[in-house]
Each structure stands twice: as structure tokens, then as C-alpha cells.
């Protein structure tokens, strides 16, 4: 085998021009596939990151009416929907892969919120429990967080994020300042910020659009204070932190089923709980970009097929050229198998070399495209391994016919020609 491989390299080296031209089909095919796969991977990772938020792993479950999210901004407290109890919250935490569960009330469009004469519009308002900040990975940037006493005594205190600091307080530290919410006075006790990175936590398409169109920010108050500003018995939303991105879909669905079962009274209610599964939406977007690229991979595969036929052609020429060599080898005792292996090895080495060059060109090309067109690329090691193995396989498959032809040469015929 070692002998065959070194023979193969000698053969390839002694016909440099021919070998390069033969490999070209394989090189182009593999380079195209590596480039396409890298681009798909890069785009997919970007979609996933944009939509889910890297490493956040939070699913939200909220009340839906006739398949649409129930929005308390314009509607009354729904009939036949119970408030989620602490016991139910604990049950939710028992679902596999769930790390932490938070209950919260929200207004997507805050109204009647003032700081002095400035109205806070376009931002969101949340009534949050003790778990909320840690579920979403927020940290207190200045001031303090909510204390047990804030909850127990339904204190009128709020946390704001940096968007609010900018839009409502003009960048001045708001801690200790008073806000007017629904004609009540609330004191700002702290400022929160994302702890890990500055990518937004996006949990629904709505959040995503919201983030893109406005940066006015969010205001948080203790959930037990919420009814003093708004209404009692508003249905809560649930935010669930799971231990891995891939578990989000299942955990979200399980939580939604559990809530629908326990919270909704009556079987034919128009209400139910649904998880806003960003992973699923991300996958839909990904499969969209993937299906177009799959077609490109098929086209690139045709190049590999053509390349393989080119290899077969050249190997047949090579067998004919080396008829005398084959004849002599058989005459002095080389068995069929050895001749077969010699030619198979040569074509496999040729195409593997083409595969390796193709991978290198593909990686370079992907980086160039990434730099020129601002498309993210991600080089995938499995794709590289598969490409090289695949190109070796092409060599074996398309080298088979010429190699069998060589092995079956009649030594007398072969020796006669010189």
C-alpha cells in the first residue's frame, strides 16, 4: 500500500499538467460545495443568533385567543382564565430541561407614563416576579434591584433599562427620580442592563420588530404592584429558561400544554396558551435559505460527476500508455489484485489531492465572499472531512473501470506493445 501511494505520487508528479487538469473538475466541485456549505452555516448561525439570542435559551408562553396573542392593552381581563398560581409555577419548573420559570404581566405599548412633562411612548411596561431578571440575564447596573419588601408591601418602585434612561431621562442617572404611571407616583430604584452581551433578547417577531424600530426601552415594576397601576387578575405571561437551545421547542410546548390544561376553564374555550418558539421560526427561516442552497449543492455535485468522468478518462489513457509496464509486472509475478490496487490507489490519490486543494480553495473563497459581501461564513469541519472522503470515493468509483481493465490485461498482448 505504501508502495502504491508513493508510486501514485510519482505518477501524478511526472504528469503535472495532466494531473492538474484532471483534478480541476474535482477541485471546482469541492470548492463550490465548501463555499456554499460555509455560507449556509454562517447565515443559519446568524439567523439563530438574531432570533434567539446567543446562549439565552428563554421561551415565552402567553395566552392566545383564537390563535392570536392576547393583548391586555386594549382588552379586558378574559373570562374563564385563571391567574397562574405559585404551585403551577413550581409544576412548570418540573418539566424536563427547565431551569427557571418567571411569571410577569406586560403592556406592549405603555400609556400614561410621564417623567415631568415628557411622555414615555412606544416602550414596554412589565410587572415582574423575583425570577424575571435572572431568567433573562439582566443585571443591576446602578441603584438596586427589587427586595422582598418591595413585593410584600406592593411598593411603588420601578427599574428601568438603558433605553428609558436615554429616551425619558436624557441620559441622566434616574435612580431616586419619580415617574408617573397611570396617575400614580413610582420611584426609580435601579437601572438594568443585559449581562452577557449587547445583543437583544428577542422572544418573538414582535420583539424583534420592536427592537429594530424603537429603542425607547422597558420599565419594570414588582408584579404585586401591577394591579395598583392596572387591573387585578390579569393573565400572566410565562418566561421559561431551559438548559439548551435545542430543548426550547419541547419545553415550550410542554409548558403551554400544562398551562392550557390547568388555567383554562371549559373544554371548548377560545383561549389557549402557546409558546413562542423562536427556534421553530429560526428553523423555518433557515430551511428557506437552505433549500435554495441545496439546489446549488446539486449543481456543484454535477461538477464532481463530470470531474469523476474526467478522472476515469485519464486513467483509461494511463492504462493504455502503461500497457507494457502492466504486462511486464504480470510476467514477473504481479497478481491481478496488485495491479488493480495500483491503479485504484493512483486515481484515489489523484482525486483526494483534488479534494484537499478544493477544500483549501473553498475556504479561501468563502472568506473572500464573506469579506466582500458582508455575508457571515462558518467553516464546518464535518463538511471538510466529508468532502475529502467523498473525493476519495470518487477516485475509487471512477478509477474502478480503468483499474479492472488494467488488471485483466493479457500479459502477452501487453508485452507485445512497447
Amino acid at each position: 500500500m505504501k508502495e502504491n501511494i508513493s508510486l501514485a505520487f510519482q505518477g501524478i508528479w511526472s504528469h503535472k499538467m495532466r494531473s492538474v487538469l484532471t483534478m480541476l473538475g474535482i477541485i471546482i466541485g469541492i470548492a463550490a460545495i465548501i463555499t456554499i456549505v460555509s455560507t449556509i452555516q454562517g447565515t443559519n448561525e446568524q439567523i439563530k443568533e438574531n432570533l434567539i439570542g446567543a446562549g439565552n435559551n428563554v421561551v415565552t408562553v402567553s395566552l392566545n385567543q383564537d390563535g392570536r396573542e392576547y393583548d391586555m392593552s386594549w382588552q379586558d381581563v378574559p373570562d374563564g382564565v385563571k391567574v397562574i398560581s405559585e404551585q403551577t409555577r413550581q409544576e412548570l419548573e418540573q418539566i424536563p430541561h427547565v431551569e427557571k420559570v418567571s411569571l410577569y404581566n406586560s403592556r406592549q405599548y405603555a400609556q400614561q407614563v410621564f417623567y415631568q412633562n415628557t411622555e414615555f411612548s412606544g416602550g414596554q411596561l412589565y410587572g415582574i416576579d423575583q425570577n424575571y431578571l435572572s431568567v433573562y440575564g439582566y443585571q443591576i447596573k446602578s441603584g438596586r434591584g427589587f427586595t422582598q419588601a418591595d413585593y410584600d408591601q406592593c411598593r411603588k418602585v420601578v427599574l428601568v433599562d438603558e433605553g428609558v434612561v436615554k429616551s425619558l431621562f436624557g441620559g441622566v442617572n434616574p435612580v431616586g427620580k419619580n415617574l408617573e404611571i397611570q396617575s400614580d407616583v413610582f420611584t426609580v430604584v435601579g437601572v438594568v442592563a443585559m449581562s452577557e452581551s449587547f445583543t437583544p433578547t428577542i422572544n418573538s417577531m414582535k420583539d424583534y420588530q420592536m427592537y429594530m424600530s424603537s429603542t425607547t426601552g422597558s420599565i419594570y415594576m414588582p408584579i404585586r404592584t401591577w394591579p395598583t397601576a392596572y387591573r387585578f387578575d390579569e393573565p400572566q405571561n410565562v418566561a421559561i429558561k431551559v438548559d439548551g437551545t435545542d430543548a426550547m421547542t419541547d419545553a415550550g410546548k410542554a409548558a403551554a400544554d400544562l398551562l392550557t390544561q390547568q388555567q383554562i376553564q371549559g373544554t371548548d374555550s377560545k383561549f389557549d396558551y402557546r409558546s413562542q418558539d423562536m427556534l421553530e421560526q429560526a428553523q423555518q427561516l433557515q430551511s428557506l435559505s437552505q433549500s435554495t442552497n441545496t439546489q446549488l449543492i446539486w449543481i456543484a455535485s454535477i461538477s464532481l460527476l463530470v470531474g469523476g468522468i474526467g478522472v476515469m478518462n485519464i486513467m483509461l489513457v494511463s492504462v493504455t500508455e502503461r500497457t507494457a509496464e502492466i504486462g511486464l509486472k504480470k510476467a514477473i509475478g504481479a497478481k491481478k489484485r496488485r495491479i488493480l490496487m495500483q491503479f485504484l490507489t493512483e486515481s484515489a490519490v489523484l482525486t483526494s489531492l483534488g479534494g484537499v486543494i478544493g477544500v483549501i480553495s473553498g475556504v479561501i473563497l468563502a472568506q473572500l465572499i464573506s469579506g466582500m459581501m458582508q455575508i457571515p461564513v462558518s467553516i464546518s469541519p464535518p463538511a471538510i472531512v466529508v468532502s475529502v472522503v467523498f473525493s476519495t470515493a470518487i477516485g475509487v468509483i471512477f478509477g474502478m473501470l480503468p483499474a479492472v481493465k488494467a488488471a485483466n490485461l493479457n500479459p502477452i498482448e501487453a508485452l507485445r506493445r512497447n
Partner: protein
Amino acid sequence: MAILKLFDICKDYQQGKEPVRVLKNVNLTVEEGEYLAIMGPSGSGKTTLMNIIGCLDVPTSGSYELDGRDLKDLSDDELADIRNQKLGFVFQNFHLLPKMTALDNVALPLLYGGVGQKERRERAAEALKSVGLEERMDFLPNQLSGGQCQRVAIARAMVGKPKLLLADEPTGALDTKAGNQIMEIFRALSNEGMTILMITHEPAIAACADKIYHILDGELRTGETVGGKSHEA
């Protein structure tokens, strides 16, 4: 002891619709240590006979024993082993592999015989030395003269210590001087006890052997002895 026994060997080739009989009931026995030449004009069937003796071709009928073994119905692989272990070939056109050094060319049969690399090199070097080419081991065939190439080919034929050396027009591509050198080597090998069977159409070359057979139209005629030092067939 007889190295080679041919009984009633016939060989037909299909030419158009009619089979053409190229060899007609050839009988030949070669004793160990004999040095014989088969002479014949082109088309007489001498190359066909050589191919059959060399296990490169199979006869249409008749039987063939080499070194006491009947070669009927052997597989391709078994025949390859016999060529590798028992036979040494010398061709008119040398048939050296152009991209290998003299040493590697000589070592090639040992590779197919499953000999390890170190021993291959040692034995190949020894074989080259015995034909006087120890200075040329690392030369490529195109750096050697015709006579030297043929000596490399003889070393390759002898390296596996065969029972029978087959030579097909070994001097056909050489000038007289180089041809004579080759004949000297053959003579020396014969004196060491090697059995040699040589095909030629040159009477002067055939005369170097101990015994000469003539082949004409596929029929082998009884051998004539040269210089009276042959065993009787």
C-alpha cells in the same frame, strides 16, 4: 531431473472463422542444468511456445509439467506465483520500468514474492553485482546502454533464484559486442548449473547454447548438439 516436460502441446488461434493451429504436438523435455536454444523464423510459433512455457499463455491441448508440477487448470494467481518463483524472463526489449532505478527494477519480483524491503535491496544489489553493474545501481534505464539494460534485466530474472531462465531474443536489440557480453553471462550462469531456454533466429547466438532445436510451422524438430557437450533429450 527434468525441469520442464511438454507432452503433445497444441495451440490454436482463432483467425476469422477458422482456427489456426500454431503449435502442433510439441514434445520437449528440458533437464536441470541444460542450456538450449530454439531457433525458427518469424511466424514459426517460437514466441507462442515461449509464452506457454513461461505460463503467460495456456495450451489448447496437451500437458505441461514444470519442476514436477502439472500446470493444468491453475488459476491466474497461481500462475502468477509460478512465474514469480520458478521462472526468470529476459526480453528482447529489456522491459525495464523507466522511472525506477536499476536496483528497484531488479528488486521488483521480490516485492511481488513478498520479500521484505531490506532483504529486497540486499538481494537486488547482489544480483546487479553478479552482472557487473554494482556501479550503476542508482541509474535510471535511460542512463544505461542497451547492453547494460539487458544485464539489469538478467539480474531481475535471476534475483528470485528461478528454476528456469527464459530468454526471448535476448540479443535482438543489441550490437554484436553487447550481444556477446550477454552470451558470456548466459554461459557463466549455465556453468553454475542454471537451466536456460533461449529463443533466437540468429544461428551465431543459438550456437552459444549446448543444444539447438528448430521450430518450423509449429513443429519442433529434434535437437542438434553443439560441441558434443549436451545431454540427450
